[in-house]
């Protein structure tokens, strides 16, 4: 749970972004986005397709920056400006896990996860230290992919690769992890395991997670708070109960006619199709 009154770990203020200079009436992808993420928070980012969720995630993790002249705003990690940090240092603080984790060339799962650590080192000849290898093992075991370590990435299934991707993020040491559709191909038992791992890391080690998932119910199961991105701005934010509401959802997904209920096991809000047009 979010520690009360803790200062934000990762925050964005007044972010305005577009890939190319906006022409005429073309709006920015992100017009005016502000949000704050705290230690121990597991949040989910909701929005329709194309609303700029991935773009926002990348801006928050440093994969994209606001340096172009037509962009505005600020992204901070604690009190430092994120984009001013050396990229290696930044990687130790925040990292992004995308939907596709793959390599065009033969790379084993172990090697891929190890990269999270080896990039932090500067020694020319040492591939990895024992400490590195132990951390990699620990991360892969937590993500239930240690048995895949000698397999080459391109031979793994989508779900298997996503577990390896998560392990990479953990091994890297970043405590803020942004997951962009990173659970979507996992089997349910793996999803459950990773979800529980997230909760555990957030609760016990003050990790911060921001999830994007097209399956809202997956997101709501593990998250404790949500942000709604609509038309380039954050329209709603807060605890799940305040955000997951029928009016918000119908704004995001017009015509879907959704209902919000409660999970019988966890009490978390769940989204249902009303299916009123059935035969």
């Amino acid at each position, binding site marked *: 749970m979010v520690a009360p009154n803790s200062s934000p770990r990762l925050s964005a203020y007044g972010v305005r972004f577009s890939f190319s200079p906006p022409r005429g009436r073309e709006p920015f992808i992100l017009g005016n986005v502000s949000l704050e993420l705290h230690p121990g928070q597991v949040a989910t980012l909701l929005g329709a397709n194309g609303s700029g969720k991935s773009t926002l995630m990348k801006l928050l993790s440093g994969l994209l920056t606001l340096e172009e002249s037509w962009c505005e705003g600020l992204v901070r990690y604690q009190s430092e400006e994120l984009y001013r940090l050396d990229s290696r*240092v930044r990687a130790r603080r925040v990292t992004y896990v995308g939907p596709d984790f793959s390599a065009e060339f033969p790379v084993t799962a*172990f090697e891929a996860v190890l990269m*999270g650590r080896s990039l*932090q080192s500067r020694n020319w000849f040492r591939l990895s230290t024992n400490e590195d290898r132990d951390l990699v093992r620990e991360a892969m075991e937590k993500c239930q992919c240690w048995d895949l370590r000698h397999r080459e990435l391109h031979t793994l299934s989508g779900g298997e690769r996503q577990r390896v991707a998560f392990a990479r993020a953990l091994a890297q040491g970043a405590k803020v992890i942004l997951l962009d559709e990173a659970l979507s191909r996992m089997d349910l038992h793996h999803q459950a395991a990773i979800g529980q791992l997230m909760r555990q890391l957030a609760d016990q080690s003050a990790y911060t997670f921001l999830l994007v998932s097209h399956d809202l119910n997956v997101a709501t199961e593990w998250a404790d708070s949500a942000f709604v991105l609509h038309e380039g701005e954050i329209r709603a934010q807060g605890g799940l109960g305040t955000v997951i509401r029928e009016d918000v959802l119908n704004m995001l997904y017009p015509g879907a006619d959704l209902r919000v209920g409660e999970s019988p096991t966890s009490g978390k809000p769940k989204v249902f199709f009303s299916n009123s047009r059935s035969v």
Partner: protein
Amino acid sequence: MRPLRLTSGLSAFVLSTLFWLGSFWVALRVGAVSDADFDLVLQLRLPRVILASAVGMGLSVAGATLQALFTNPLCEPYTLGISSGAALGAVIGSALGYDASYSGLAVPAFVGALLFAGVLSVISRRSTSSQLAVLLAGVMLGLLGSSLVAVWMAVSDAQGIQGALIWLMGSLSRARMEGSILSLFGVITLSLLLWRKWRELDAFLLGEEGALALGVSVQQVRTQMILLTSLLVGLCVSGAGMIGFIGLMIPHFVRRFSGSLHLTLLPLCAIWGATSLNLADSLARTAIAPYELPVGVVTALAGAPFFLSILLKRMGRVEG
């Protein structure tokens, strides 16, 4: 698959170096003329073997680096059009009557390559340039260079251009001791500078996004690497003309046995590139003696089937 990789690094190196020395021996001995003239060997074959090692090394390291940088297994040293820059330089140099005694057209060719490298670096540095954009820019630059050469050919004295183009066709027979040693020195220096960044190159294996997530400053590293590889390719092309397929094949071959991590990949590519070019050149020199096959033909004949097999394998891959 795994056990053969990281741990066997040392034995892989020893074995590879043995092969390399073997190729030296073959190159110096094969096609011995009536008496084993030590003079002959020293004056003609030794510079040739040194140049073959340098160029083979340079092309393989450049190829491996570009394949990682652009996350594309089909990349090779000439993808970014640097060779067209060298061609343009050679053609213009020859037209201007430039013909220094030891280097032939090597200097103007290198200058041409350098100019193209500069343009590419500028393009790569722009933050709005994605990986694909830089790659396409390189391809376009290559086409531009070739077209300019063609235009020059159409309007100028065909004889001089002929000379320049023959010069550009891959051949190691021009090797002179001083030039070869200089090339070797240059190639080793540039390769070391590339090797230093092996961690970043590894990160690129996971894609541009993956590299960014790992904390690599992609723009900066990419620009540096492009500049270094362009210099490397420029050096190789100015020294021996265009020799294809080495830069494409060797990295793939080495990856099959030693994995993709660049700490071991780059040095092994260097060694195997030197070895294979030595062997190819020996074959070129002796196969239809006294005629000499262009060494690029030998590498292409060996390389084309290999290239096709990569393509077919990729097309047949099942998505996970």
